[in-house]
């Protein structure tokens, strides 16, 4: 059984052999390595939540660079879809049910015209994890969500400053009442450990001194307020500097530490490129440099990663375990489907990814942590249940209608359609033939539903 690290001989690290300069230079399609539907699907999976066949054909026709441009373009102004979704969010916020807000976000991930922004917002939500379990205030959770969205592909410094005063975050980290006499170390610790630098880059003393900087930072009536009477105005000594007084100065000082860009780049690499193995520092060096040059604005680095030769290397395709959200939204998008998003939000919770309810301040570990025997069954059951849910419509019709439009006339051709639409890596042929033999007499809508149910139980469905 392959799960323990300590039982297997050390694996050769794929990334040890890769030349950093080659890796991060821009991929350009060629005759041997063309921009085709498979490459476009990979891009849509990594930079978004997947795509329908029509989207892919569109991307292929448009060309690689134009497709990338579309991912990074600012959201269209006055987009009716976006207005509708924002109105929907406001209505839900007014009714104050955070679970419903989670359903809203899943719906928006499915329909957003700029999926990369939602993907990055999800990244930051895991990074600056805050749970509505402890902050059951829909308004504050939405406010934080918008903060993350506004800076999703922007300046990390602004985001860090924003999050430091974000009511939901401070309530979550028990920093809502941070008094001079009892500095609360929670936020200070997470700021360096989880948000900016990672363990091993600071001392306990740094944390204590940082905490002093944030005294007097309070949440009153759901708003941030600086209370000068509770602020410890003395000079603090952090990272060898003795000139820091305020929380703002402290954050700026943290952001100047060389560990910050390294920490962020490693996380972005894991999120966009591969769950494992961890790359050697040299491989990340060019990206770190880029992030420093861009003064911690992440857009350039994300773009460089997504357009890179390494990203389009065949060894990278399928080298991530799809998060439950990527699995569910990806499947819906591939099938041009809409569904009961409340049902989806409730079910996906059992698979370990409940948006607005991350398990701890560390967010979701991702990668292998998604998979154990109960979540594996749960994943297959979720996809099957989505197919069976009476609210699920495929391009406005039944799955049978959809299959017909895709030109799938029998079980064999339908399996082909689903494999090419929903999976990054095809399952072994022998296996598919085995399934086909068993299923060849299946007919009608129920048959298509079952085929997807069967394919969802395969290991390949879990890769992205």
């Amino acid at each position, binding site marked *: 059984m392959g799960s323990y690290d300590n039982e297997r001989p050390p694996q050769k690290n794929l990334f040890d052999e890769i030349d950093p300069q080659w890796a991060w230079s821009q991929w350009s399609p060629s005759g041997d390595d063309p921009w085709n539907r498979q490459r476009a699907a990979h891009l849509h999976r990594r930079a978004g939540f997947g795509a329908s066949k029509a989207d892919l054909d569109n991307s292929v026709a448009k060309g690689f660079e134009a497709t990338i441009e579309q991912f990074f373009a600012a959201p269209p102004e006055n987009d009716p879809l976006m207005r509708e979704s924002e109105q929907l969010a406001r209505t839900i916020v007014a009714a104050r049910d955070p679970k419903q807000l989670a359903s809203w976000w899943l719906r928006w991930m499915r329909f957003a015209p700029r999926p990369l922004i939602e993907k990055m917002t999800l990244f930051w939500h895991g990074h600056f994890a805050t749970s509505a379990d402890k902050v059951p205030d829909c308004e504050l959770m939405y406010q934080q969500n918008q903060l993350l969205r506004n800076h999703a592909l922007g300046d990390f410094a602004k985001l860090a400053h924003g999050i430091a005063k974000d009511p939901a975050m401070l309530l979550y980290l028990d920093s809502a009442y941070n008094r001079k006499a009892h500095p609360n170390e929670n936020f200070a610790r997470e700021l360096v450990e989880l948000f900016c630098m990672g363990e091993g880059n600071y001392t306990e003393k740094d944390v204590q001194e940082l905490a002093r900087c944030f005294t007097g930072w309070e949440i009153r009536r759901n708003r941030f307020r600086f209370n000068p009477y509770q602020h410890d105005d003395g000079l603090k000594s952090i990272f060898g500097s003795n000139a820091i007084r305020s929380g703002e100065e402290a954050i700026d000082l943290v952001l100047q530490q060389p560990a910050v860009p390294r920490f962020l780049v490693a996380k972005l690499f894991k999120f966009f490129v591969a769950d*494992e193995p961890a790359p050697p520092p040299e491989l990340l060096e060019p990206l770190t440099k880029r992030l420093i040059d861009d003064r911690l604005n992440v857009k350039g680095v994300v773009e460089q990663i997504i357009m890179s030769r390494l990203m389009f290397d065949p060894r990278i395709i399928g080298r991530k375990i799809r998060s439950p959200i990527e699995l569910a939204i990806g499947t819906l998008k591939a099938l041009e489907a809409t569904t009961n998003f409340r049902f989806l939000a409730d079910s996906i919770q059992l698979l370990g990814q409940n948006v607005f309810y991350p*398990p701890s301040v560390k967010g979701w570990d991702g990668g292998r942590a998604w998979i154990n025997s109960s979540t594996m069954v749960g994943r297959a*059951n979720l996809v099957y249940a989505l197919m069976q849910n009476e609210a699920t419509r495929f391009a406005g019709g039944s799955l049978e209608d959809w299959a017909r439009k895709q030109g799938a006339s029998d079980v064999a051709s339908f399996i082909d359609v689903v494999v090419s639409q929903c999976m990054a890596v095809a399952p072994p042929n022998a296996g598919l033939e085995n399934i086909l033999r068993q299923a060849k007499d299946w007919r009608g809508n129920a048959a298509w539903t079952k085929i997807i149910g069967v394919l969802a139980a395969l290991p390949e469905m879990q890769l992205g």
Partner: protein
Amino acid sequence: MMNEENFRRLSRFAIDRRTFIQGSCGLTALGAASSLHGSWLASTASKSTSNRILIVIQLTGGNDGLNTVIPYRNELYRKARPKLGIPEADVLKVDDELGFHPSCRGLADLMEAGQLAVVHGVGYPFPNRSHFESMDIWHTCYRKDARVREGWLGRFMAQHRNLADDDAMGLHFGREDQPLALASKNLQVPSIAAIEQFRLRIADETSISEAMQPVQEAENREDQNDLVAFVQAGSSAAWNAGKRIQQVLQSNQELPPFPATQLGEKLSVVARLITASLNTRIYYVTLDGFDTHALQPAAHASLLRQWSEALASFMKYLDVQGRTDDVLVFTFSEFGRRVAENASDGTDHGAAAPVFIAGGSARNGFLGSHPSLDDLDDGDLKFQFDFRQIYATFIEHWFGVEGDEILGAKFEPSPFLNLIPA
């Protein structure tokens, strides 16, 4: 008390020797070990304790320990409980002093069968009488001001997650929020509402099962990178677990039935998962309603009946499966109740109370002496075992791993298990 001390020392020694032997075998077998403190214990102990499972039953609300394990001859008990006292004739007597509540027939049977340890007077210093705070203390081993958001089981599971192989290290049953005891920054425990979560529906509802088996197998895949191998393994583990559970569900006709109660149903799922050889090590279930401030007799009787019937059915089921030696069922509550009853036929929040450990390896009988009724701490029973000693026994003796870091300090395990190697 002297005997107690001796036993404790003895068993401690026995365990040490045992783990040492396992440890050295493990070392030679593996040829190398991580230098990290404690982890050699874990990786090697996992070989010998590989089937061991702990089920935790949490009685939420504060169970009235004094009316569960009853000092039925004690005058002070009669005095403190003029209305709620259980008449001597009704008590299920274990010895000349103590007996169980009449609803606890299941407990009495377990003790008869030699499978139940009852530890008297478990608690902690300076007892907190708030439900939430006391429960948090039991869950985290820390007081509120420490702001610890990880539970003792969460820390244990995160450190030793490899004990469960491809399965989840721990499972929580029920629709309520997950108990803090299971929380960990580094490991997420699934919550199970129904056994259906382990059944691959597509395989149950179609004839596809056989055809899919080969697709789940590894040899059909060339180009194996680590990640594919891992997902493959997880996938076929799930596949096999699902099939085993299916078999268990289909063959349960002759097996002892479970009561159709909330707890009975939860434990029946646990029993079936264990029978299906899931490698999960920690199962956590709760039963709420023990906060009996008023009209306690009927309510408490029905809760105790639900608990003891479910527990007894569970043990009977495992007996038939020959698995009682692999399993311990630990029952606790966040506190006991006051010794004196109140004016509305109920009892208010108290402190120390007994805990219960059922299993083939439980040292049958009572451990310690029943807390004195004339030496009270502000009207409450005094504790003689710290609850972290109970935890230490589970972690160190049952699972055979280092417990100090998990419990936050060194605690002497209490000797309620028969784990002396031959």
